[in-house]
């Protein structure tokens, strides 16, 4: 096992130990904190598939968090609580929306691509704000967490392990994907797209499918997030949320699978826990910290762990 994979495995074991440790020290609130961390880690992994591996700087990735969340919230509003159904909707609708957004935005590149993905996400954000039926800008409470048969998400610890399992699954799927023929194409496009076309790859269709896979995975994260917060608002799709997810990827290390997880852990803990407890001016500290990381750890926190090329 490579050093990075070992560190990632240790990290996952530590995550698995959070509920018993939190119970032992009488701080059950940590289960909540780390569940949220892991949900964002899944979102960040999904973004990294296109951003880090594919070189597609999508600045609207939070759109799929919102779609996934509403895919749970809206059926619940009508009394449909079947989780298998809700989560399937979350994944399928996210993939479909990614297909539409990708079909338009992937014809552009550079700054235009960034702006178009951002514009689509903002469009969905305003849509969420304007539909009064589902609470408009106030959002709506989730009447009940998704019902998954014997797996009872109302139990916070059970829900925690469901999220952990899905995080591990996302990592496994991501690992398979990036090393497959499909993954080699996506990485080749990031490396040198004109060359890819010259040797015979019609790159657009591969980029589009990668875009859909990333959207679907992030939609699942959205379905988890609404169950976690038991509330859904258009804020899930706000561009600052897209920026947050992107920063997790860059902070942790683009183009690695462990990076987004590490980035999610560090950024969430800093934003949610450490800095606010330390000083009320924490945002003024977080900014420069992030700038320093980007300047001095170009390959992210994971890049500080030296190793041969990642396979």
């Amino acid at each position, binding site marked *: 096992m490579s050093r990075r994979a070992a560190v990632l495995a240790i990290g996952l074991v530590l995550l698995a130990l959070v509920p018993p440790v939190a119970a032992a020290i009488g701080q059950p609130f940590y289960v909540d904190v780390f569940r949220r961390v892991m949900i964002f880690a899944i979102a960040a992994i999904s973004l990294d598939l296109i951003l880090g591996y594919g070189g597609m700087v999508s600045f609207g990735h939070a759109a799929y968090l919102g779609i996934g969340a509403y895919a749970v919230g809206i059926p619940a509003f009508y009394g449909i609580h079947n989780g298998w159904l809700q989560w399937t909707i979350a994944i399928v609708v996210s993939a479909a929306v990614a297909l539409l957004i990708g079909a338009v935005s992937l014809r552009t590149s550079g700054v235009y691509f960034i702006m178009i993905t951002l514009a689509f996400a903002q469009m969905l954000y305003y849509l969420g704000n304007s539909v009064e039926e589902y609470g408009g800008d106030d959002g709506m409470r989730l009447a009940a967490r998704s019902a998954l048969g014997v797996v009872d998400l109302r139990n916070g610890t059970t829900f925690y392990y469901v999220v952990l399992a899905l995080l591990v699954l996302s990592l496994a799927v991501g690992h*398979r994907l990036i*090393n497959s023929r499909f993954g*080699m194409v996506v990485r080749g496009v990031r490396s*040198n797209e*004109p*060359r890819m076309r*010259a040797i*015979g790859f*019609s790159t657009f269709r*591969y980029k589009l499918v990668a875009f859909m896979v990333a959207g679907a995975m992030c939609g699942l994260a959205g379905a988890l997030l609404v169950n976690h917060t038991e509330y859904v608002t258009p804020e899930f799709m706000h561009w600052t949320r897209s920026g947050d997810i992107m920063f997790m990827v860059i902070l942790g290390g683009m183009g690695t699978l462990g990076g987004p997880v590490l980035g999610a852990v560090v950024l969430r803990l800093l934003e949610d826990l450490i800095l606010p407890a330390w000083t009320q001016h924490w945002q003024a500290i977080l900014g420069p910290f992030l700038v320093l990381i980007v300047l001095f750890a170009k390959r992210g926190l994971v890049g500080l762990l030296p190793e041969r090329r990642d396979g």
Partner: protein
Amino acid sequence: MGDVLLEVRGLTKSFGGLIATNRVDLQILEGESHAIIGPNGAGKTTLIAQLAGDLRPDAGTIAFAGGDITALTAPARSRRGLARSFQITSVFRDFTALDNVALAVQAHAGHSFRFWRPARRDGTLRQPAAAVLESVGLGARAGVLAANLAHGEQRQLEIAMVLATRPRLLLLDEPMAGMGLEESQRMIDLLRTLKGSHTLLLVEHDMDAVFALADRISVMVYGRIIASGPPEEIRANAEVREAYLGEDAR
């Protein structure tokens, strides 16, 4: 030498007021080595780019292996058997030499919507790729990142990627660009091994290389092909000497 493989008619491309290729007609025969020479800015790269599908012509047609390919995209042309190399080295710098060539093999091994099996352990990609690398003399450098190869080796790698697509026509844009004497000689030797077994369209500055490799030569000046013929004829052509070869040829 056989049938016409590539038939170009009236190919025209302007950039603003500048006509980079001006009603170019060109025929490449199956099996020949055809060189295009001409001064800098004559439109050679623009011609190659249009043949490969990277640039859309303003007018004219390109027929390849009997079919009109003028409207096809670059990847579609590649899959039909046209392969280009670039004047400015273009490889996957963050992949190993073997990965570079394996990608070229993969591009011609059916679709790549295969999401599960690791491509780097796929013998049907790695073995042909390794064989091609070996054939261009990079066998010992398979595991080296392309970015860490010497300039001449990167140029060889370009040729390997071209060959890995099993093309019917190779479009080589100044394969010796930026090379030292020794590296150039190695490249000429390599191209000589392809001559005969492959159809080559070679853009080149180095006259020694051109006269050593080409069966036929076309001379391009200001976007036009002003002469076309076997090397002796081109050497003797007064117009060519005046326009291009100048003092050297005397």
